[in-house]
């Protein structure tokens, strides 16, 4: 009944595909294979995660006790700027791109991306963008105006070191790479799906990457334009943001947040897709409400462009504007909430396996909801006025970026690790890592909500010995070190799994999508033949023909049947 279809070969042989595995580093540098480029993205993520984490630990050492003199104010400014910039542009962004580039061709049943060389170009230009950003430390000082580099602080008269110039060029280069990869992924998904994979059979992860591709294409040009203008201001004495010469500080904020808010969704939508895969496989149930998971993703991506002013409530835009954006910001809570219930519904009644990946996914539900609730509180304008630029913001954004994006990425990492490496990690180590990381994370950031409410501003290099400040900051710093220590355990887990891990087999989790059909790790050529697709769980249909979705009606497949 299920008969395989022959997969068409790429029209011409892939450039560089003749380099074989014996050639070591050369093979990686010259590679245009989507799996190798995906792995390089993930390695780059890991590298910058440790660098960015180290910067954060230095900050937490400085803030551990009041009136500390461990760091000078200007070094502290450079540290928090580089920490934020690194984590957003060189950890989360390459992580989602790496996962997408590795998995999308596998999940849609293709042998390559639509443009393999563009794929390699995009990786390397992002990689060198990151190096250029860090070169600023040697060139006279890192950028020091915060990761969103507000005007007029980003002007030469306030930040004379070349740091912000490197910030502009580094982010422009990596931005070009990100836009190229986004376009590449969209074209790949649109044109290279295996013939029977209709859009309604796309794995949820691929759906999220597709939506995300459009989000990147629409959001990054605003950032690139802003960076170009800033560079013209600094290098050619232009006056876009120079308030002394008639420029506008608000113009920078508009352009930056018109990119910056969608960017939050850019780094969280693919993790949503990852989680949708993780929840269904580890719950042994198809995702609950597939159309709603996809539809709410589309809704989030559209709303993403209508909420940027909520970063600017304190700039005095007037009550009408503020009210409009307060409402639109709250609206975003609805599709996000829909997704949370989709995942809860997937777990409900499932026969759940709490592997490390599933633990991260479950913890995500809790942490991301906390981040979402503090986000909703910011949509209320008077609360925003009270709490903006305090540690409450720091707590909120870390619950969203770590509790949301990073937990999702970790869930996906443990889920796909056997596929990518061909080996199993040790579950005991994974669970130790999970618990240490989660406890450390909550210790670090939960108390920062309270710190913000009692009035501690963000980005201060030290603080007086006020009631409450010292113990809460100490707890936060200890939590940060716990998180840092758990990351060392993570490194050991990786080493242990790659060195001594058991062979995992092609489909250790009884997964649903096409990547589990090929060998682990996949060969250079992903597939020769593929079975036709009758549902969004093609491998499940193949392995369990007696209970496969291909026999069911559409209503049952998508869980939209009214059972009353």
């Amino acid at each position, binding site marked *: 009944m299920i008969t395989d279809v022959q997969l068409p070969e790429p029209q011409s042989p892939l450039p560089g595909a003749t380099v074989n595995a014996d050639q070591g580093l050369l093979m990686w540098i010259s590679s245009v294979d989507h799996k190798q480029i995906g792995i390089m993205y993930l390695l780059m993520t890991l590298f910058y995660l440790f660098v960015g984490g180290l910067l954060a630990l230095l900050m937490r050492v400085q803030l551990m006790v009041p009136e500390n003199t461990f760091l000078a104010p200007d070094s502290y400014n450079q540290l928090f700027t580089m920490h934020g910039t690194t984590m957003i542009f060189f950890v989360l962004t390459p992580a989602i791109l790496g996962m997408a580039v590795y998995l999308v061709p596998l999940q849609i049943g293709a042998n390559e991306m639509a443009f393999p060389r563009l794929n390699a170009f995009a990786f390397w230009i992002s990689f060198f963008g990151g190096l250029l950003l860090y070169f600023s430390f040697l060139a006279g000082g890192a950028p020091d105006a915060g990761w969103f580099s507000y005007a007029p602080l980003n002007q030469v008269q306030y930040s004379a070191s070349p740091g912000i110039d490197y910030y502009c060029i580094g982010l422009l280069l990596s931005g070009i790479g990100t*836009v190229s990869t986004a376009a590449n992924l969209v074209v790949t998904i649109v044109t290279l799906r295996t013939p029977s994979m209709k859009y309604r059979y796309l794995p949820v992860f691929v759906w999220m990457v597709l939506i995300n591709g459009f989000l990147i294409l629409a959001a990054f040009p605003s950032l690139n334009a802003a960076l170009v203008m800033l560079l013209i201001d600094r290098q050619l004495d232009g006056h876009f943001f120079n308030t002394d010469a008639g420029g506008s500080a608000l113009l920078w904020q508009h352009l930056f947040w018109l990119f910056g808010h969608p960017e939050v969704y850019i780094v969280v939508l693919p993790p949503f897709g990852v989680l949708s895969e993780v929840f269904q496989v580890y719950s042994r149930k198809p995702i609950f409400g597939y159309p709603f998971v996809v539809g709410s993703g589309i809704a989030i991506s559209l709303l993403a462009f209508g909420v940027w002013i909520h970063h600017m409530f304190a700039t005095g835009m007037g009550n009408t504007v503020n009210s409009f954006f307060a409402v639109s910001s709250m609206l975003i809570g609805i599709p996000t909430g829909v997704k949370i219930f989709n995942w809860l519904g997937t777990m409900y009644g499932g026969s759940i396996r709490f592997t490390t990946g599933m633990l991260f996914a479950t913890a995500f539900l809790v942490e991301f909801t906390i981040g979402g609730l503090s986000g909703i509180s910011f949509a209320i304008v008077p609360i925003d006025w009270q709490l903006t630029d305090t540690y409450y913001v720091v707590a909120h954004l870390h619950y969203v970026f770590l509790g949301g994006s990073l937990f999702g990425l970790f869930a996906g990492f443990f889920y796909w690790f056997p596929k990518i490496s061909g080996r199993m990690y040790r579950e005991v180590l994974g669970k130790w890592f999970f618990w240490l990381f989660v406890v450390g994370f909550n210790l670090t950031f939960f108390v920062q909500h309270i710190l913000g409410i009692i009035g501690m501003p963000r980005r201060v290099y030290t603080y007086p010995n006020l009631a409450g400040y010292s113990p809460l900051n100490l707890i936060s710093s200890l939590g940060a070190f716990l998180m840092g220590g758990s990351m060392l355990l993570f490194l050991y887990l990786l080493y242990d799994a790659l060195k001594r891990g058991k062979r995992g087999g092609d489909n250790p989790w009884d997964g649903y999508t096409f990547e589990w059909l090929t060998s682990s790790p996949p060969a250079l050529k992903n597939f020769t033949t593929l079975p036709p697709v009758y549902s969004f769980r093609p491998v499940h249909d193949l392995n369990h023909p007696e209970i496969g979705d291909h026999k069911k009606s559409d209503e049952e497949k998508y869980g939209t049947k009214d059972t009353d």
Partner: protein
Amino acid sequence: MEQKTLIKLIVGSEAIFFLALLMAFVYFTYVPALNPRVASTLDLTTTGLFTVLLLSSSVTFWRAEVSFRRGHTTQLRLWLIATVVLGAVFLVGQGIEYSGLLSRQLTISKGTFTTSFFTLTGFHGLHVLIGLIVLSIVLYLAFLGDLDDPDSALLPSVGIYWHFVDIVWAVVFVVVYVLPHFLTPRAS
């Protein structure tokens, strides 16, 4: 097919980039009231002439595409040459305009108007230049005979980009040159 989809996505992304530059120009020039010196600074007639030349390069490219689909290789090459020449003349016109402004000390650091004006038109000029380089390569390939096959996606893909560059200029021309000219009250 793949190439055309890719170019459409990139062009869509670029459109938002230009929109951001255009909004900066509009913000500095039109808000709170139109800067009356814009109309007197910029020469509508000369730039209008070069605008006509650039827009007609879209027409010649369209004719090149028609010749390409019909397999008329000689006409294809001639229309492509015409397109490159028209684009190059536009760039020369922009150079003349820039040197005129610079000779009057209207540099990029003069004020918010010149900053946003040079950035907007300069980035458009850069896109024209990139288009000309690509078109020259296409022309070279046409003479090598690579475009004799009417199924090649090369020419239609380049066309999407070239028409986009022209459309951007049409919008820029209206906002930067035409509207200030008509909205500024005449001093008489």
